[in-house]
């Protein structure tokens, strides 16, 4: 089971990073949600995996899974929603304002800027 979870985390990280490196904003947003999945699972896995040991105190049961990473991840999930929402809106406003979603300027534009900086 650990191999499945670890490889899953790895694949999610890979997709997240790949999309985050993209040149347009929407894939970057999807990339951050993938990275959030990966990071949340990773944090959760720090409490180790266990099955049917939910941290709900029950009479006669003494063996529970670690509740602390769960509490941390729970807030992390909600916060990553807040972050995603913010980034989406930033991207949306940027697109509406400029008409483009590109996250970098072209080579020509860059060279022009560099020349300007030289002259200064």
């Amino acid at each position, binding site marked *: *089971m*650990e*191999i*499945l*979870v*670890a*490889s899953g*985390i*790895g694949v999610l*990280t*890979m997709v*997240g990073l*790949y*999309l985050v*490196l*993209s*040149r347009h904003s929407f894939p970057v*947003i*999807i990339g951050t*949600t*993938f990275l959030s*999945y*990966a990071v949340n699972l*990773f944090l*959760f*896995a720090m409490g*180790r*995996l*266990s*099955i049917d040991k*939910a941290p*709900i*105190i029950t009479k006669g049961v003494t063996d*529970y*899974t*670690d*509740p*602390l990473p*769960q*509490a941390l991840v*729970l*807030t992390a999930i*909600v*916060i990553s*929603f*807040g972050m*995603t*929402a913010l980034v989406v*809106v930033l*991207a*949306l*406003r940027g*697109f*509406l304002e400029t*008409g483009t979603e590109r*996250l*970098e*300027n072209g080579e020509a534009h*860059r060279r022009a800027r560099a020349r300007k*900086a030289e002259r200064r």
Partner: protein
Amino acid sequence: MQLALIALFPLAGAVLPLIAIRAGRNACTFVTAAVSSIALLILLANAPAVFGGATVRSGTDWVPALGLSFRFFLDGLGLFFATMILVIGLLVIVYSRFYLDRDDPMGRFFAFLLLFQGAMLGIVTSDNILLLVVFWELTSLSSFLLIGYWSHLPEGRQGARMALIVTGGGGLLLMAGMLLLGQAAGSYELTEVLQRGDAIKASPLYVPILLLVLGAAFTKSAQFPFHFWLPHAMAAPTPVSAYLHSATMVKAGVFLLARLWPVLSGTELWFAIVATTGLVTMLIGAWIALFKDDLKGILAHSTVSHLGLMTMLLGFGTRTAVIACMFHILNHATFKASLFMSAGIVDHETGTRSLRKLGGLARLMPISAVLALIAAASMAGVPLFNGFLSKEMMLEAAAETSVFGSVWIVPAAATLGALLSVAYSARFAVSTYLGRPRAALTKHPHDPPFGMWAPVAALVIPVVAIGLAPQLIAGAVVERTALAVVGAATLDFHPLAIWHGFTGPLLMSGIALAGGLALLLLHTPLETLRHALPRPDAKAMFDAVIAASVRAARWSIRRLHNDSLPRYLAVITLTILAVGSAGFVTGRHDAGLRAMLPVNLPAAVAWILLIAASVAVMLFHVHRLLTLILSSVVGLIVSLTFMQFSAPDLALTQISVEVVTVILLLLALNLLPKITPAEPRLGRKLRDVALAGGGGLGAAALAYAVMTRDLGSISDFYLAESKPSGGGTNVVNVILVDFRGFDTFGEIIVLCIAALVIYALLSSALEGAAARRLDAMRQRNDSADAHPLVLVVAARVLLPLAITVGVYIFLRGHNQPGGGFIAGLVVATAIIMQFMASGYAWSAEQRRIDGHRLLGAGVLIAAATGIGALLFGHPFLTSSFVYVPVPLIGDVELATAILFDIGVFLTVVGTVVLSLSQISRVERRAKRTPAPVGPSDIPLVPRAPLQPRPAAPSAQEG
């Protein structure tokens, strides 16, 4: 008496001149002088104890973990410098009152001056070496402000910048040096560091400490090769030069050398660097001073030369040399400050400071001329003035010093320095005050007002008095100061005297006086010689270095900061990968021993789905809608994973967040392009795949390595205490609302901020370029069926159901999976569904409370719960609970944590509703269909064919 006040009084009092200037220039001067006087009184109240041989200490801890304390101490050396700073400060304040023009902002000048004075006093009284660094940097900053006081003059700005760069850079060296010194000594308290000289000299850190501290002292005290900033700082108003560049700031470096003398001196390295630098600086400074035509230029280079002399004396490392150095500091402060003030008087009265134009002023302004001539004689080392005595002692110390087996080199060089000093002093005096004017002056010079020459007189009196009766006036002070420097209980102190008989030093003095006057006659041929010699221009070199570093900074910024987010992220990813790989390669790679869980069929299926969906996203991510669907599949599997591994709360949270996120992204996608342009360059694709693959591999390996090792956790505490002290059986929820409630409180505030930023970003999106683009979309984005009937009805039916479910989830949260976060998301989803089904306008009309209120109420309720605990004498956010017996149902638990959870719930609802409703509001602008007028947009009769919209809707809706 609290010693801290000596430094803090001027620092805090720096605001007073800014206020007092409204009452006039005299009031402003009076207030400033009063601040200094009070500090002086506090200081002098401690003087009897210091002269009794005690070291006065006071202060308190500041950041003990860093070794930083707020402690001050006063011994002979500190008292000597502090008195000098305050007394000359007072004289400079009086002098400035008459020197500054009516147009000069006097309040600002005195504020800067007091800031500087406080910082200087801090240096000489700090007991903690880190505190000393803080004050040291403060002097650099405040002197920057003072030198650049006439900020309309380019020389003022450039000189200030140069001084700041050189002395501020020295401050950084000092910080590094002091940190090492504290480590080597095992304490950051100066009084303790001074006791551990032997341990420090034996430490392997001694050489770096010495080099760093000397770097700081040499930059501050303008020692070769850092001497170039001081002449450029002469662009400052003359009172600033008189104060900073004769008596105080430039002496801070000498002070530092004296302060750390017991700890650092006495080694060959110390002698080699300090004595040599001092000697070279003394000669170079004096040589250049001889050829300057600007009065202040002569004085600046003379100061450089005299500072070199002091540094050289400390470098000798003998006790006689220390006594000579302390005596010379006192004498130099008196004659140099008065000479600077005299130069200011000349400038003020004649409008020029050039020796080529001046001359014969003795007849026009007799009082100032007499004062200046006395001071200049003292600078030259003429007998019966104080400069003669300390120069004699310097020559004596030099005569006892031999280098490279020769007893001649140092004495000869010292005599040469004295000779040059005689020459430039004589040139200064003769060319300004004697003879006849060399050029027609625009003004008719006469003696300045009393207030302007009185401070000069006050400094010239000790010049003469010490010169005539040295032991009576200065003997005790010099002895006490030298005792403090060497850190000994007794000192072989010979009473200061004018006449020692016919000795070597007297002969050297005689040679210097005669030679100096002879040199003056040879001034013209010497000047030709000087022009023939190479004269490196320090300012040009400095400017070249600065320009080169600016170019290097620009170049690296262009490389790194090239307007490309992908590039930045790639660099960051690569760095993380490199650091991780380095750690991995150098670490151990034992296999973990923890037993693994067996794989079951549903898990395997889910894993395959996850991998398939992820890979599909990577391949087809240009199709955005498809990507969204695939990513929600992944989200679903993630929440199933939480379910599988005993985390029901996480599973619930993840799935409800997933729903909200997908809705959000769908709303956004409606306005964004549906297709991402494909990346055309293969190389870039490969680079991204390689980086992403490396990152994924690293994350997987790390997760695997951790999961196969056993865990030592602090969670047993939470499991054991959840029910007894938190009152709930769902440990995760109890942690969130109770044990770590403060964290959660912070989280909901972050959510709030995100929601408000979203609101701010979109509330202005209906104007300007964004609005035009939305209008353009409206014509393209035609959809015949904006609000399908099935969806509208389903959403209406779902709303009360979803709210009921939300309330249920909320109420059981403390004991069963659930809680404020999840309930909030469920209820928010139900509300958002109404937006989706019926449009923004309809929902906005139906809603009675808006997102802002929900957010505010949520945070306030959570905070009130926390503060409630304070009222009962418990820490913030302590929860309490009672069991209330209710007939038929049994005991019902009432916990304050529930209230806190209500706050969380409201904030989550508010965040989601506010952000999504903002997006729908913007979206509406792009929609084709007119806003419905009725309570529902389900038309009872078929609508007439589309009519042109009357006008754009107002931006104020909602």
